[in-house]
């Protein structure tokens, strides 16, 4: 049947029309092979544009449509839906990208229009060979996995569970709670962080729809949307979780009692080798850290492990092994959180050498009544109260040599801590804040800032060049741009607000999950404005700070959004995937088996025929549509629907020829 193609050229407001002569392009399209009608429209993605496309399809009996518009990565789904509503198979659509790859790049109208013509020519050539395709449907497995048990992961899990879905919440450390559990208070309301977090943690543990897998890590993910197969390694705690009542006698008795740096307290406090990260841990069970426990590092613990003696329930079992479980879910939400930049490498701040130069997270632990100093503000060097505390903001942030981005939470964290210090120490302590800008953008944030500004706290606008350690005090030189004066601050305790950075295993993890990272290393969202919780891998979503620095309220909102997006898929029994799978022409396939090892999903097998020859067979449910097998097929028997050799060749020929 002859191809009847309609071409729609979008003005995209001024985005395209200001640089590309759309009318000239429209006339040009009329003369291309197979084109029966060519139109322009201000916004083809609008209701009006959609209606015009649908009417044109019917009026001209089109069996192919080409849009010259924004990138297919923007609106392919929109246009496919319009085409489908217009009665045409949605895969008879080809998009000529004349915005992101043309009008937004070239200022010269002549150049942009000439290039747009070429791009359109290629698209029309391919459209002339497109075929109707049927999108395969996959059965959606019930259940979701949330990776990461911080506030974002907790929120996503609770939302999904409330909707009635089964959730597996996987957390690397022995307890959920994440960074928020380390905070004393949250800004701007100064809520007690533990008080608002622990009820949610408790809900997670008691919700019948949530299976909590703490001290566990994801080791492998296979499959695709609706059908993910996840391998989770449950690390051995060497404690029987059913028997353990969380009494803590073991930790008190431990031979290494109070000798090991406590990670939760950012190294400022100590713990035992058998420990619980913090008092409200969920699950409230103890864990033996095999990297420090003498039974593992030395092979024995004195005359015998003291924890075993002390435990009334006989929970300790050094013979436990890591176990692996395989979990099938329909969707995955990644909520793995963030790290803070270690300022040790930035010598000018003296962080590595001086005990009294600490980070905001470390200060948070000092402030916390459950922290290493029971909430007393004491200098780590000598345990005395500081007479002067200086906050340095933007350490490593907004810095081309370290992290170019704003950490988003630094200003508010420092203001909050300044307030809490004043609350604890009153005017006994001098507080200085050295800032670049105060970014108090959220609801109630500006008001909080003004309150702090009205207190007896010194604000300097500038970045100090160094923190000099004079042993009995610290000196900071700073040029204040508001007064144009150079100040020398003498202080006892310096608090650095370090940059917020992706987890150090973000690149390994992103490959494991098969999602991309942005330039800054955080996990990449599908669209920063419209799809901030989606990734480019269907069925995998991101929530919280793993996508970019956020405070608690934005993390919670993001997480609820991710849960909603995930639930959209789980609420369906079947999900339509893309039809760009590989197909074997059985008349041409000689069973040479070259394609078998090339498929990363093991989707191709050799099937013996009656006459003892073999033919390659593609499992449609496993094929992800990469096309590697098509190129590996030496005889041309393998083709990829929607990206057939002849379709691509038509584009090549159209692009290659001279005008």
């Amino acid at each position, binding site marked *: 049947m002859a191809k009847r193609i309609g071409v729609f050229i979008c003005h995209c407001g001024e985005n395209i029309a200001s640089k590309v002569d759309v009318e000239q392009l429209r006339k040009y399209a009329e003369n291309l092979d197979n084109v029966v009608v060519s139109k322009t429209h201000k916004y083809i993605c609008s209701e009006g544009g959609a209606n015009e496309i649908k009417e044109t399809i019917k009026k001209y009996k089109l069996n192919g449509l080409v849009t010259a518009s924004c990138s297919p990565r923007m609106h392919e789904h929109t246009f496919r839906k319009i085409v489908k509503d217009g009665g045409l198979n949605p895969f008879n659509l080809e998009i000529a990208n004349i915005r992101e790859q043309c009008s937004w790049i*070239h200022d010269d109208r002549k150049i942009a229009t000439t290039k747009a013509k070429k791009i359109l020519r290629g698209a029309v050539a391919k459209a002339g060979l497109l075929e109707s395709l049927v999108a395969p449907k996959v059965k959606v497995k019930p259940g979701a996995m949330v990776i990461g048990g911080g506030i974002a992961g907790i929120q996503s899990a609770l939302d999904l569970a409330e909707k009635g879905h089964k959730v597996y919440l996987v957390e690397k450390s022995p307890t959920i709670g994440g960074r928020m559990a380390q905070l004393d208070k949250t800004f701007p309301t100064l809520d007690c962080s533990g008080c608002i977090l622990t009820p949610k943690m408790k809900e997670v543990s008691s919700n019948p729809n949530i299976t909590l897998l703490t001290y566990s890590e994801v080791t492998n993910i296979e499959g695709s949307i609706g059908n993910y197969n996840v391998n989770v390694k449950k690390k051995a705690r060497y404690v029987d979780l059913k028997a353990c009542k969380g009494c803590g006698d073991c930790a008190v008795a431990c031979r290494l009692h109070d000798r090991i740096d406590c990670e939760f307290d950012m190294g400022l406090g100590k713990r035992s080798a058998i420990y619980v990260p913090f008092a409200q841990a969920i699950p409230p069970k103890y864990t033996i850290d095999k990297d420090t426990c003498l039974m593992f590092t030395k092979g024995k613990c004195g005359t015998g492990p003291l924890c075993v003696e002390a435990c009334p329930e006989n929970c300790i079992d050094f013979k436990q092994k890591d176990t692996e479980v395989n979990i099938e879910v329909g969707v995955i939400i990644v909520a793995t959180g963030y790290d803070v930049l270690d300022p040790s490498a930035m010598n000018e701040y003296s962080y590595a050498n001086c005990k009294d130069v600490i980070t905001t997270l470390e200060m948070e632990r000092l402030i916390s009544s459950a922290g290493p100093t029971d909430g007393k503000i004491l200098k780590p060097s000598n345990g005395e109260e500081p007479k002067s505390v200086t906050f340095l903001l933007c350490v490593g942030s907004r810095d081309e040599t370290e992290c170019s981005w704003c950490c988003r939470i630094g200003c508010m964290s420092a203001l909050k801590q300044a307030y809490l210090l004043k609350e604890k120490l009153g005017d006994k302590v001098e507080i200085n804040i050295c800032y670049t800008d105060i970014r108090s953008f959220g609801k109630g944030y500006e008001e909080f800032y003004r309150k702090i500004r009205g207190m007896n706290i010194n604000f300097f606008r500038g970045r100090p060049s160094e923190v000099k350690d004079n042993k009995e005090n610290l000196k900071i030189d700073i040029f204040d741009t508001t007064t144009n004066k150079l100040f020398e601050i003498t202080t006892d305790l310096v608090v650095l607000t370090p940059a917020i950075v992706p987890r150090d295993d973000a690149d390994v993890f992103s490959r494991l999950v098969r999602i991309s990272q942005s330039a800054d290393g955080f996990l990449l969202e599908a669209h920063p404005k419209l799809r901030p919780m989606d990734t480019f891998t269907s069925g995998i979503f991101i929530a919280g700070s793993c996508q970019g620095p956020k405070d608690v309220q934005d993390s919670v909102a993001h997480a609820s959004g991710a849960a909603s997006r995930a639930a959209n898929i789980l609420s369906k029994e079947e999900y339509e995937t893309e039809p760009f799978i590989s197909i074997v022409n059985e008349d041409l396939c000689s069973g040479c088996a070259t394609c078998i090892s090339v498929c990363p999903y093991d989707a191709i097998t050799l099937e013996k025929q009656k006459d003892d020859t073999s033919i390659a067979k593609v499992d449609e449910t496993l094929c992800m*549509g990469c096309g590697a097998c098509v190129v590996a097929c030496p005889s041309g028997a393998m083709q990829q629907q929607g990206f057939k050799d002849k379709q691509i060749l038509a584009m090549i020929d159209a692009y290659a020829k001279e005008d």
Partner: protein
Amino acid sequence: MTDSYEPNIIAFLCNWCSYAGSDLAGTSRIKYPPNVRSIRVMCSGRVDTSFILRALKKGADGVLIAGCHPGDCHYQSGNYKTNRRIILLKKLLDQLGIDEKRVRFDYISASEGQKFADVVTEFVNELKEIGPCTLKEVEQ
């Protein structure tokens, strides 16, 4: 090597990385020369050797194939295969007397808009120096 010669470059870009990177260059309004016409494929592993040869034969002066960085391929390993195919193709091009610099394989991620622009600019300049590809004029 006349001044009016503008290299015609056909680029094969993969949907998840380099095509997105190219889009990002546009979104960021980064300027680069207009010589590229791109063909979107789902994976750089879909680029057949015959596509590259056809492009050169039919009039392209250069062919750019851009995929995900090693280890980041959306389909695990497509880009490794592309790399090997292009290495072998370049051996053939050498025997055929075609400057192997006319075929360029690069790794460009979704967030590397500037890199895309830089690669195109560099490629255009290189092709201007090598001169137009005269394959289409060769006696059939």
